[in-house]
C-alpha cells in the first residue's frame, strides 16, 4: 500500500465520516422538526374532529328537544291510551332526522320505539333513574336493536303536561355509519372500538394495546401504529356512558404517509448529497494527495534510481516548504555521496592496481629469480669451466624451461580470471559432485592431518549448474580450508535442501578470519596467504554469481570459517 493510497484512504474516511455525521444531524433535526409539525397538525385535526363530534351531539340534543316540544309529543303525553301511538316514534324520528327514538311513559314502559318497534311495553328503567335529563346533552349508552346491541348517542327530554309526563329519548347509533358521516380532513380516519357488554367487544388486534391503555387510564392516549408508509398516528379518546362506564374508544387515525414520504425524500436527497459530497471529497482527496505525495514520490523515484546506480539522478522541486527543503537536502546529500563514491572507487581502483602490481611482481619475481641465477650460472660455467658447460647448460636449460612454464602458468591464471566462460547449465547431483571434488584432495588432507565430515541431504534435488565450474568452486574452497588448517582439523561438507533452492556449506576449524578480512575476502587479488594470486575466491564469487546464487562467509578469529553457497531453483 503506497503512501498516497494510505493518505487517500485517510482523507476518504475523514470525508465520509464528516459527510455522514452532517447527514445524520441534518436528517435527525429535519425529522424532529417534521414530527413536531405533524404532531401539531394531528392535534389540530383531532380537535377539529372533537368539535365535529360535539356538534353532532348538540344536534341530537336539539332534535330531541324539538320533538319534546312538539304538539305530537304533548298529545301523546296527554293520551289515555297509548296503543294508537304505537308507530308514532317512527314518524317523529323520520321527521327530525333521528335514527333512534323512544317515547316512554312515566313508568318507564315504551309507548313507541322507532328503532325497535316490537319493544313497546318493555321498560326503560334507566330513564326514570335520573331526574336531570333536561340539562344533559347527548349521552352514550348501549341500545338494544332487533339485530343486537349497539352504542348510541342519546339525548333525553321530559314532556310534562299537567300531572302527566313522558320521556323522549332520541339519538343516533354510534357506529361506522355514523362516523362515516363526520367531516374528516384528508388523510384521517376514525375507528370506534365498542364494548357492547356481555363480552361483546370489537376485535382490533393492531389497536388493542392502545385501547387497553385508554381503558386503564380513562384518558386520551396516542400511539403510532403500523410501520413504513402504512403507519398511522392514532389518538384514542375514551367515550363514557351516562353512568360513567367506559363504553367505547374513539380512535382518530392520521396517516403518516406524507411524513414518511417526506422523510424518504429527505433521506434520498440526503443520500444524494452525501454521495455527491463523498465523491467530491474523494476527488479532492485524490487531487490533494497527488499534490502532497508528488514530491515524496519524486524523492522515492530518485532514491530508487540512485539505488539502481544512477548517481546523477536528482529531485527537481522548486517549492520552499519542508518537502522542498527535504528535496534540496536530498540532492545535496546524493551529490556528496556520489562524489564520495567516486573517490572511493578511484581509491579502490588504485588500491587494486597496486595490489595487482604487487601480486604480479611477487608472482613474477619468484620464477624470474631462478631464471637469473641459472643464466648467471651458465655464464660463469662458460667462462670458468668450459668443460662443465654442457652439463651446466643442460641443467640450466631444464631449469629455465621449468620456470618459464611456471611463468606461463601464472599468466594463464590471470588470463583465466579475465575471461571467465559462461556456465553450461545441466542437471547436477550436488552431493556426488561435492564427494568427487573432496576425493581429489584425499592425499593432501591425510598429509595435513585433516579429518573430513560429510553431511549430505539425501533428498537434495537436482541442481541446474555447470559441473565443471561448481567443481572448481569446491576445489578452491577445499584448498582454502586445507590452507587454513596447517595443524590439522576437521573439514565439513554439508548440503541441505531448502525451500526454493539448495544450501552447500564448507566449514573448517582453522584459525578463522577477522571481520575486515571477511569484508575483503572476495576482492580480486586480495589474499591472506603468503602465496597465491588472490583470485581464487574472486573466481568463486564470480561463478556463484553467474549461477544466480549467493555466497557468504561466517567466521571469527579462532572459530574456523564456513562458506555458505545458496543455489536457487534457476541454478
Amino acid at each position, binding site marked *: 500500500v503506497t503512501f498516497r493510497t494510505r493518505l487517500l484512504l485517510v482523507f476518504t474516511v475523514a470525508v465520509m465520516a464528516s459527510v455522514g455525521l452532517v447527514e445524520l444531524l441534518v436528517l435527525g433535526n429535519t425529522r424532529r422538526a417534521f414530527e413536531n409539525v405533524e404532531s401539531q397538525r394531528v392535534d389540530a385535526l383531532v380537535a377539529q374532529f372533537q368539535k365535529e363530534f360535539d356538534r353532532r351531539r348538540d344536534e341530537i340534543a336539539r332534535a330531541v328537544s324539538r320533538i319534546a316540544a312538539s304538539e305530537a309529543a304533548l298529545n301523546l303525553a296527554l293520551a289515555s291510551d297509548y*296503543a*294508537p301511538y*304505537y308507530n308514532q316514534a317512527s314518524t317523529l324520528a323520520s321527521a327530525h332526522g333521528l335514527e333512534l327514538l323512544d317515547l316512554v311513559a312515566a313508568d318507564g314502559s315504551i309507548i313507541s320505539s322507532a328503532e325497535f318497534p*316490537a319493544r*313497546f*311495553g*318493555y321498560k326503560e328503567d334507566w330513564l326514570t333513574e335520573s331526574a336531570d335529563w333536561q340539562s344533559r346533552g347527548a349521552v352514550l349508552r348501549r341500545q338494544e336493536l*332487533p339485530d343486537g346491541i349497539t352504542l348510541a348517542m342519546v339525548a333525553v327530554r321530559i314532556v310534562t303536561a299537567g300531572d302527566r309526563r313522558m320521556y323522549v329519548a332520541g339519538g343516533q347509533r354510534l357506529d361506522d355509519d355514523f362516523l362515516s358521516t363526520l367531516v374528516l380532513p384528508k388523510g384521517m380516519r376514525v375507528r370506534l372500538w365498542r364494548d357492547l357488554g356481555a363480552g361483546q367487544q370489537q376485535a382490533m388486534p393492531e389497536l388493542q394495546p392502545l385501547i387497553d391503555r385508554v381503558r386503564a387510564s380513562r384518558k386520551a392516549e396516542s400511539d403510532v401504529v403500523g410501520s413504513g408508509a402504512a403507519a398511522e398516528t392514532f389518538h384514542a379518546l375514551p367515550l363514557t356512558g351516562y353512568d360513567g362506564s367506559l363504553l367505547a374508544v374513539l380512535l382518530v387515525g392520521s396517516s403518516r404517509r406524507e411524513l414518511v414520504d417526506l422523510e424518504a425524500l429527505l433521506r434520498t436527497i440526503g443520500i444524494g448529497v452525501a454521495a455527491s459530497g463523498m465523491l467530491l471529497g474523494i476527488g479532492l482527496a485524490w487531487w490533494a494527495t497527488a499534490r502532497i505525495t508528488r514530491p515524496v514520490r519524486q524523492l522515492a523515484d530518485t532514491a530508487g534510481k540512485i539505488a539502481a546506480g544512477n548517481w546523477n539522478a536528482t529531485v527537481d522541486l522548486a517549492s520552499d516548504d519542508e518537502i522542498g527543503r527535504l528535496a534540496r537536502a536530498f540532492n545535496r546529500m546524493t551529490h556528496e555521496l556520489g562524489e564520495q563514491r567516486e573517490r572511493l572507487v578511484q581509491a579502490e581502483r588504485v588500491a587494486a592496481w597496486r595490489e595487482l602490481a604487487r601480486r604480479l611482481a611477487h608472482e613474477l619475481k619468484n620464477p624470474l629469480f631462478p631464471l637469473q641465477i641459472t643464466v648467471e650460472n651458465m655464464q660463469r660455467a662458460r667462462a670458468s669451466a668450459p668443460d662443465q658447460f654442457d652439463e651446466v647448460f643442460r641443467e640450466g636449460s631444464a631449469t629455465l624451461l621449468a620456470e618459464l612454464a611456471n611463468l606461463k602458468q601464472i599468466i594463464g591464471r590471470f588470463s583465466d580470471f579475465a575471461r571467465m566462460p559462461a556456465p553450461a547449465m545441466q542437471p547436477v547431483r550436488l552431493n556426488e559432485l561435492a564427494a568427487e571434488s573432496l576425493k581429489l584432495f584425499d592425499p593432501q588432507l591425510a598429509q595435513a592431518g585433516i579429518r573430513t565430515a560429510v553431511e549430505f541431504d539425501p533428498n537434495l534435488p537436482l541442481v541446474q549448474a555447470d559441473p565443471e565450474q561448481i567443481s572448481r568452486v569446491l576445489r578452491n574452497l577445499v584448498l582454502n580450508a586445507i590452507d587454513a588448517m596447517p595443524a590439522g582439523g576437521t573439514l565439513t561438507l554439508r548440503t541441505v535442501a531448502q525451500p526454493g533452492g539448495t544450501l552447500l556449506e564448507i566449514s573448517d576449524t582453522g584459525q578463522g578470519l577477522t571481520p575486515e578480512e571477511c569484508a575483503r575476502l572476495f576482492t580480486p587479488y586480495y589474499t591472506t596467504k603468503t602465496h597465491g594470486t588472490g583470485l581464487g575466491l574472486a573466481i568463486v564469487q564470480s561463478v556463484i554469481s553467474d549461477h544466480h546464487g549467493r555466497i557468504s562467509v561466517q567466521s571469527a578469529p579462532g572459530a574456523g570459517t564456513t562458506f555458505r553457497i545458496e543455489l536457487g531453483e534457476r541454478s
Partner: protein
Amino acid sequence: VLSRRQWLLAAAAAAGLPPGAAATRPRYGGTLRVEIREAVESADPPQFGPGMAQLSSAFAVTRWEAGRRAVFAADENAPGGRPFLDIVDVQMARPQRERAIEFGRADLVELGPAELRPGSSQRIWSSAPVRLLALVFGPRVDDVRVREALSLAVDRAAIHKAMLQRQGEISGGLLPQWISGYAFLFPAAADIPRARALLSGVPASARALTLAAADRTMAERIALNARDASLALSAVPAGAADVRLAEARVISSDPALALAGVAAALGLPAPAPTAGPEALLAAERSLLEGARVIPLFHLPDLYAVGPRVRGGPGITPLGEWRFENLWLEGGRP
C-alpha cells in the same frame, strides 16, 4: 239471495252513509283504483281465494303485470248484470299505501292493523276476523316443552293492543269465536313463569330456534317475548326456519268446513267429519294437541275507503270482494 236493491240498502246502512246516500241512484262508469298489500307474483291472475279472484264473476281481466298491477274491465254480460264500474285497477304492494287515499291516488286501500291511523276519520270496511295468525313448528322442534313454552311466552294481549290496534281478536283456537262459538275455551294468556318452568330442563341448544315471518315487527316481538322465557329466537328465511309465523284464512262460515280449510292451510291433518259443536271442539283440540300449531290472532281484512266510493261495503264478512255493487261519485248517470 238478496236482490240488487236490497243489497244496496243493506250496504248503505252497513257503510254508515247518510240515509239519503243509499237512495242515491247508482251511476255507471269510472275506474275504481284499488291498492292491496300483497304482491301476487303468479303468472296469471288468481282463480281462487279472496280478492281479485272474486272479481271474475262481473269483471274480466284485461291486463296482468305479476306482482305490480292488474286491470279488470266490466263484463257486459255478467250473470248478475253489468257492474256499475267500468274498470277496477288493482295496484299491488305500493309504497306509502296507507296514505294513498290521502294522496288521491286510490279509492280503496287494503290496510294492515298497524296501519290504522289513530284518531282518523277515515272510512273503513272491515271483514269479520277471518285471517288466522299462528306459529307453526317444523319437524326439528320435537320437544313439546319448547313448543308449549313459546305458546305461553307470547304476549298476545300486548301485540293485539298495540301492533294490531285491537283489530280482530286474540285467539287460542284455530277457528274464530264468531264461527265456532267456543274459541274462548282455548287458553291464550301469557304465562312467563310457567314457560320458564317448562324450559328449565331443556338443554340450551334445544332452546335456540329460528323464526321466519313476513311481518318482521311481529317476529321481533315474539322473539322478545320468547327471550323473556329463555328461548332464543332468531329470524331466518322461511325455508330453513324452526318456526314460522303463518297465516291461514277462514274460507267458509261453516265451522266444519272452516276448520278443515284452516287445518289444511297449516299443514295439520284433516279433522274427522263432525256434527255438533262438541265434536268440533274435540276435533280442534285434537289438532292443537302437542302444540305443533300455536294460534295467536284472528284478524279481519281492513280497507280504507275513499270519498268517491259509493254503494259499499264492497267486502263480505269473509273478506270477499263485491265490487259489482259499487259505483263512483261523478260517474255518468
